[in-house]
Structures are given as structure tokens and as C-alpha cells.
């Protein structure tokens, strides 16, 4: 149908100007997105490195001045910060653990061609797309010691006392970690589901013919086939968890005491409560380097 258009200009020998335009075109089209991505990601990262070497404490030194390693020295002597780092690892590993623990059985159940499985594959995404502010307040409602449905359940089970688990240091960290994993799990489910659907049925049929039971089929076919997906998606979800802020801030503000103060909370407090932006930048730089190393180590778990 395109060919029926009247031809106004047959492509003859292209002129040099036209050739130049053809060469510039791809760059011109990608440039606006690149400029914006650079402005939002690369420029701040570089500026952050510069900031981390400044002496800038709004109460004492209101304009930034070169401070050398001052922030890094302070950072390595900051006991509360290292407690937060340790807590962040517990939180991150806990979150990913809950995500995998929920996602594996759910994905196996959803990997069927029934109406129920198809409907559930869509609805399962609801917690994941519900904004943190809603999920956070919703769970505060559920865990409230006066009116909370989940609180009453925990109280009956003897897990919580008369006060909400959110007022108990260990209970609060466990609760927000679980909620974080619950909210992230649907992403792992859809990733696992895609991996499961790509396993050819013939593999299972052949194994069955060879006398392999359901457990042996799961162990020798399903697990190896989805392993890399679990590792890579687990890493992505782990990075997200490591830099969490919203859920914890909305639910506990990092408390009680410092019980749920993870790195994201430390960075936010360093800027907005302690008014030490340069120190916060130094924390971010150290965490980025640490996370990069950890990510490279996790990627070694992949099977080639």
C-alpha cells in the first residue's frame, strides 16, 4: 500500500549533505535521552564524589570548603553508621530471602494453563504496583495495637505482646523486612514464571520416561533452568532493598531507637536532620563501592 503513493522524489545519488545528515541522525535521535540520563545519573554521581571531599556542615561550615578525607575519617569512626551497615545487610538478605520463599511456590502454582492461574498471575502484581506510601500506612493499620487485624493474630500466637511489634526493636526490624519482601515478591514471581514457561515439556517427559519422580524432576530440571534467573533478579531486588528508604521511613522513621535505621535512613538523616550533606555524600560513595564489589561477587553464582 505504501508503494501506491505518488513518487515525488526518486532516491538517486545522495548528495554529500544528505549523507552527513544520515550519519548525524542516529546521534541526534538518541542525544536528548542521553543528555537527560546523564543529567540525572552521571552528573550527580560525579558531583557526589566532589562533595564527599568537602568540609560542609551547615551548623559550623555553611559553605563547602575542601576538607580532604575529613568525611571518610569521620565515617570510619562512626559506630552508629556501621551498625546501620550491618543492619542493612540483614535487611537486604532478609528481604531477598522472603521474596524467593514467597515467589518459588507461587510461581510453580501459577505455571499452569488454568483460568485461575491466569487471573492470579495478574492480581499477584497488586502489592508490587501499590505505592509505598499506601502499603506503609496500610501495614501500620494492620499492625496497630488497638485496631490491627495482623496485630491481633500475632498477639494470639504469642509473637507480639499487647504493644505493636513495631514498638519492639527486633520485632520492628523483622516486620519491616518481611513487608519489604512481601512487596517485592511479585517481581520475582513474574521473572520465575517467564523462566519456567521457557522450559520445554519434552525435558520433563524424557525424565519421566527414565523413571524420575516429581522431586527428581524438580531438582534436576526445574532448579538448574531457573537458577540464573533467581540469581540475577535476586541481585536486582537486593540492590533495590539495599537502598530502600520509603517503606522504613513511612512505617518506623528508623526507630524504635535505631532498630530499623538502614543506610538509606542514615543518608537521609545526615542531610536533613544533622545538616551534613558532604558527610552524607561520603556515605553514599562508600556504599556504592561496597555494593559494586558485592554485586560482582553475587554474579559469580551464575552458572555458565
Amino acid at each position, binding site marked *: 500500500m*505504501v*508503494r501506491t*503513493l505518488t*513518487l515525488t*522524489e526518486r*532516491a538517486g545519488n545522495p548528495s554529500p549533505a544528505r549523507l552527513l545528515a544520515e550519519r548525524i*541522525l*542516529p*546521534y541526534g*535521535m538518541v542525544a*536528548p*535521552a542521553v543528555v*537527560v*540520563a546523564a543529567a*540525572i*545519573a552521571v*552528573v*550527580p*554521581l560525579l558531583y*557526589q564524589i566532589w562533595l564527599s571531599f568537602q568540609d560542609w556542615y551547615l551548623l559550623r561550615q555553611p559553605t563547602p570548603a575542601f576538607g580532604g578525607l575529613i568525611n571518610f575519617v569521620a565515617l570510619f569512626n562512626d559506630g552508629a553508621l556501621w551498625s546501620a551497615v550491618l543492619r542493612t545487610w540483614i535487611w537486604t538478605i532478609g528481604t531477598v530471602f522472603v521474596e524467593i520463599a514467597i515467589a518459588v*511456590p*507461587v510461581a510453580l*502454582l*501459577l505455571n499452569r*494453563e*488454568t483460568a485461575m492461574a491466569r487471573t*492470579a498471575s*495478574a*492480581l499477584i*502484581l*497488586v*502489592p508490587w*504496583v501499590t*505505592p*509505598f*506510601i*499506601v502499603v506503609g*500506612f496500610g*501495614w501500620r*493499620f494492620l499492625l496497630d495495637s488497638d*485496631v*490491627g*487485624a495482623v496485630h491481633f493474630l500475632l498477639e494470639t500466637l504469642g509473637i507480639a505482646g499487647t504493644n505493636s511489634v513495631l514498638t519492639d526493636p527486633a520485632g520492628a526490624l523483622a516486620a519491616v523486612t518481611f513487608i519489604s519482601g512481601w512487596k517485592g515478591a511479585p517481581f520475582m514471581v513474574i*521473572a520465575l514464571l517467564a523462566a519456567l514457561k521457557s522450559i520445554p*515439556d519434552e525435558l520433563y517427559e524424557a525424565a519421566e520416561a527414565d523413571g524420575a519422580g516429581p522431586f527428581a524432576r524438580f531438582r534436576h530440571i526445574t532448579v538448574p533452568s531457573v537458577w540464573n*534467573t533467581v540469581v*540475577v*533478579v535476586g541481585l536486582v531486588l537486593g540492590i533495590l532493598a539495599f*537502598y*530502600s*528508604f520509603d517503606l522504613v*521511613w513511612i512505617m518506623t522513621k528508623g526507630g524504635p531507637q535505631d532498630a530499623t535505621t538502614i543506610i*538509606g535512613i542514615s*543518608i*537521609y538523616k545526615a*542531610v*536533613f536532620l544533622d545538616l551534613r550533606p558532604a558527610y*552524607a*555524600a561520603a556515605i*553514599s560513595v562508600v556504599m556504592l563501592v561496597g555494593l559494586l564489589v558485592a554485586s560482582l561477587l553475587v554474579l559469580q553464582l551464575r552458572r555458565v
Partner: protein
Amino acid sequence: MRGGRSASFLLDGLTGVLLFLLLFPVIWIFLGSIKPDPDIMAANPWPTRVTFENYIAVFNKEGFLVALRNSLIVGLSSAIITTALAAPAAYSLSRFDYRGKAAVNLLILGTQTLPVVAVLVPIVVIVRNLGLTNTLTALIFTHLALGLPIAVWVLKGYIDAIPRDLEEAALVDGCGRFEVMVRVMLPLLKPALVAVGTFAFVLSWGEYLLALSLVSKSDVRTLPLALQTLFDPYQFSWGTVMAGGVVIALPAVLLFLVFRKQLVGGLLAGAVKG
């Protein structure tokens, strides 16, 4: 796959139970929003009567409508700009080979994996230095980072799947490159453009940390910040907060579910490439 009818029925039942448990918190939020206050205080699981008074209370709260307007402005602007930036970039990455393409891919992937907290400090300082604190402009611009990378991946996947013959035929017919894009590609891409624009809107709509850090005045608040202020120490009501929560969550959830098919593939591709 295999197994008898009864086994399938049993597994469907199990799926239903698990789904209910996983969605229970969300269901509870919704029920809380339509329960009268005495039901909430008595912790009745099921409302004795369905009420909309919590919703009326939310919309009568000072600043909630302003926040709704702000969220719409920020969300729609960042959705439109995201789509307008992503479409040509995706076309370029899909159709041309050139030096530096790998670097562009890496930059976009890097932007997607970079969490907001990791660059929060410099962004706050830069926005303050530019004098843009407490402006919707700052929110619109920073919210571009949320949806842009995914938009590029999804659109690139779409364009990759469109045969080149279509464009070549049009080129032979004497159409210019630009004309080909507008007349041939744009109509084919329309569903995908709507999907990525919607997703960018949803991400901006629920965004909390940047809004919290860049906005302190009530007239530039977005909905997540407005919900926070409903925790009024003097006349606090769980029902009102849950109703506000439903107002925020509902558009995000519905829009995402409508465009789920187009978006999920791109999201997974982005994750697995990293």
C-alpha cells in the same frame, strides 16, 4: 500440564488461598476505607454498612485537591517528556549501528539500576543551587529518571520486532527518513507509546523520596506527601487515611494491570540484561 482434573482443581484451590493471603493487606486497606469508624475501632473484619464518608472526608481535607492537581501535573508532564525522549532514542538504538552505541546502552542500563537514595544528596544540592526547591519543575525533571530507561527498553523491543521492509519500501518510494518515522513507525508504535507513558505516570504518581526531599511547602505537595499529613494528631482517623490510600493506589494499580502485557516483558529484559 499433566495430572488429572481433581489435581488441577486442588492446585487451583491452593492458588486461590495463597493469592488471598498475599493480597490480604491490600483488601484490608480497601475494607478500612469503606467502614464507618466504629467498625474500625471494634476491629470488625466486615463492615456493618458500606460508607463513603471517609472518601468525602479525604477530599474535604485542606490541600488534598491541590496535591491531586500537583500529582497530575507532575505525572502527566514526566510521562509525556519520558515518551518523547524515549521513542527517538529507542528507534536510534534499534535501527542504526554507530560508534558509542554500547556506551549509550550502558548509560541507560546504569540509570535504571541506580537507586534514588544513591544520588539523593547531590540531586538535593543541585536542585537547591538551581533555586528549584519547592517547584513542580524539579519533581518533573527528576521523575524522568524513574521511567526513562524502562521506556527505552520496551520501545526498542517493539521496534526490533517491526520488519525493516516497511520502512525500506517507504524510503524507496521517496519518503524522507523523518516522514518514514512519522507516517510508518509512529502509528505502529502507538500502543507501546501509550503503555510506557502510562508506566512513567504510575511511577511518578507514587514517588515518595524525591518529593519528600525537594518539597516542603504545602502548595507544591504531591499526593504521597498529602497522605502523610492526614496523620492529624487532633482528629486522626484510620478510615480517612485508608480512603486516601485507595485514591492514590487505585489509578496506579488499574493502569498497570491494563498495560501489564506490554510492560512486564520490558521490565524483565531490563533486569536480566544487568
